[in-house]
């Protein structure tokens, strides 16, 4: 099963649509609630990253018999130093985003903590592709 969500730049009201949609599907597929919780955290953080940092993108979830794989592709601006971006507390978020309680530098670490596999590829000026998977 494939679920696709468009994510618009700066649209914080829509952050949570993909995670809540995926959560509903996984509940109906009777996936273990603890596993659903991990997936929801990772997907939500990925959504917020696209809203807060990119010019927009898509989130695609592929659900097979024993695994969910999520591909988050945005169209820029890209991450120049991925190692730095993965550090807890590092953030390039704007002041407005921080005032909302986002941008604490915990997003990517939260994704890593809750997934079995995570890869990030990024080209500055072009875009970032995040792929993570979790056994279900």
């Amino acid at each position, binding site marked *: 099963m494939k679920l696709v969500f468009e994510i618009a730049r700066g649209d914080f009201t829509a952050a949570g649509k993909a995670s809540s949609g995926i959560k509903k599907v996984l509940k109906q597929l009777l996936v273990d609630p603890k596993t659903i919780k991990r997936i929801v*955290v990772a997907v*939500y953080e990925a959504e917020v990253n696209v809203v807060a940092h990119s010019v927009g993108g898509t989130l695609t979830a592929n659900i097979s018999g024993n695994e969910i794989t999520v591909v988050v592709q945005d169209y820029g601006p890209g991450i120049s130093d991925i190692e730095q971006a993965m550090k807890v507390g590092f953030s390039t978020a704007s002041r407005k985003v921080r005032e*909302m*309680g986002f941008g*604490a530098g915990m997003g990517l670490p939260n994704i890593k903590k809750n997934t079995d596999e995570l890869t990030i590829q990024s080209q500055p000026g072009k875009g970032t592709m995040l792929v993570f998977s979790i056994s279900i």
Partner: protein
Amino acid sequence: MPIAIGKEDEMKVSEIVGKLNLKVFSGEVGLDRKISGAYVSDLLSDVMGNAEEGMVWVTLQTHQNVLAIASLKELAAIILVKNFEPEADTVLHSYEEGIPVLGTDLPTFEIVGKLYNALK
């Protein structure tokens, strides 16, 4: 840090509304929700990463992403401190999800002290 409490002692949201003299802004249908503990933070990723199902969340954030997180994490209720009021779409989302948004005029330190005593 989360406070975890035993299942047999679980209190309802309506009980802490009474004990702590809280305002109920929205989501009254959720006043019967059971409380498993509490989490205090204004950083959304911190709550996303560390709060647990059934917890009451104490914060000064009033925008609707608070409800998105409360819903995804299946929290019991939200308490806004220092007379902060929920934004209009936060209220709407609270009714949609049946998760109460509560309020107090007390600052975080004081309301959390009372909440700790009520739940421990």
